[in-house]
């Protein structure tokens, strides 16, 4: 039986892992390669690295991080954050990432998904999408870009379906309303996407308690749950999370 994945997210700025609340206040929480190794040994199923370095010249630092992570962990990981061209995708993949994640740049240029999928394979291309609740939209959710700052005219569900048609292999759905609150995932929009699109959906934003992860699997049928603060700050261990899910009949990878 296919297991539900627990994915840990690491935000990387200038080669260091940071954590912010609602895209503000960032604090340094460690070396991304060491953290990746630690979580790998603890049994994480997958990792996501977001490069939140603004400038292009500092991109090289991120590529170096990716290459060192690839030498140290033998599970899939994806890299996102400001990737806006095929050549940037190629650099990240050749450095050893399994997948690349595109977000705002794919909204500006949807052919990025199509070209990436045809060159590197559908399984390589992850669409990251940030959404805000908005009753004026057909699905009640609006796509926002640039770290949640800029609203677009795109409806969340329509954009997810379009991305699937363009060749995205997976969607990471982040609720800006829930992100950083630690009050739980946005279940409504997660369920909407998991039911309406044919590719895996990773729920992101809002996890603070183990029950939140259980909820997003049982009530919203997410394929994977993305977590950050709850493990970065030592509130919970992966072992606690997986054993709780296992006791609640969620198939998870326990022997690693």
């Amino acid at each position, binding site marked *: 039986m*296919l297991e539900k994945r627990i994915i840990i997210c690491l935000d990387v700025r200038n080669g260091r892992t940071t954590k912010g609340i609602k895209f503000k206040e960032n604090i340094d929480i460690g070396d991304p390669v060491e953290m990746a190794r630690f979580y790998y040994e603890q049994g994480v199923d997958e990792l996501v690295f977001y490069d939140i370095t603004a400038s292009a010249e500092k991109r090289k630092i991120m590529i170096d991080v990716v290459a060192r992570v690839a030498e140290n962990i*033998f599970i899939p990981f994806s890299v996102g954050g400001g990737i806006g061209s095929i050549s940037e995708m190629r650099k990240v993949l050749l450095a050893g990432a399994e997948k690349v994640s595109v977000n705002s740049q794919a909204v500006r240029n949807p052919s990025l998904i199509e070209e990436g999928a045809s060159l590197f394979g559908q399984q390589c291309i992850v669409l990251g999408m940030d959404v805000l609740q908005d009753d004026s939209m057909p699905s009640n959710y609006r796509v926002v870009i640039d770290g949640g700052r800029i609203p677009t005219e795109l409806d969340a569900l329509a954009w997810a379906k379009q991305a699937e048609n363009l060749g995205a*292999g997976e969607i990471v759905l982040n609720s800006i309303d829930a992100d950083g609150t630690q009050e739980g995932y946005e279940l409504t929009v997660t369920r909407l996407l998991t039911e309406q699109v044919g590719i895996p959906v990773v729920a992101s934003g809002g996890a603070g308690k183990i029950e939140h992860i259980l909820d997003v699997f049982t009530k919203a049928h997410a394929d994977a749950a993305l977590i950050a603060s709850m493990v970065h700050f030592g509130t919970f261990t992966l072992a606690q999370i997986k054993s709780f899910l296992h006791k609640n009949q969620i198939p998870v990878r326990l022997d690693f």
Partner: protein
Amino acid sequence: MSIAVVDYNAGNLRSVETALKHLRAEFFITSDPDKILKADKLIFPGVGEARAAMKVLHETNLDQAITDYYKSGRPFLGICLGSQIILDSSEESRTACLGLIPGVARRFPRQAGYKVPHMGWNQVLHNGSHYLFKGIPDAASFYFVHSYYPDPYEQKARITDTEYMIKFCSTLSVNNLTAVQFHPEKSGKYGLKLLQNFLAARGI
């Protein structure tokens, strides 16, 4: 000992490379048919589309080299797409394949509640008798990402099963050739163990 990893422009070989380096294997990545024929062991990885992959193999004469290598009887490991295009054909773009093992690569059916591609960790059910699974518990999880799966005609070629909608063959083996649908290079310690078992094999 020289291990050839076939490079035929089907996806990124970097993760196979880092895993083999980690295991301190002596290997080289090549698209040269002569070097493949002379190798002691062969790893045939790949992700991507069957027809495009077969086109490249044909244009580079790698199809013949891989077939001749298989006939030599030396150890051969196929991974992911490399577990599909060793069969007679693939349903993907109705592609004629290498025909090393009788069978077809089939697409997962459409079924409510099941996403395609089958992506993530899933259990590999085996009876423990095959050398690649030495030291690996039955039902250990491996990382999968694929929309097609190998379906060999001969029952005895089916070494492991995995369940996703249906029970499909996740490892097949005939003579010196064993191929896995999952990605051992991305499957943590059991994936590394499987690769190590292949590196340690002294031929079949």
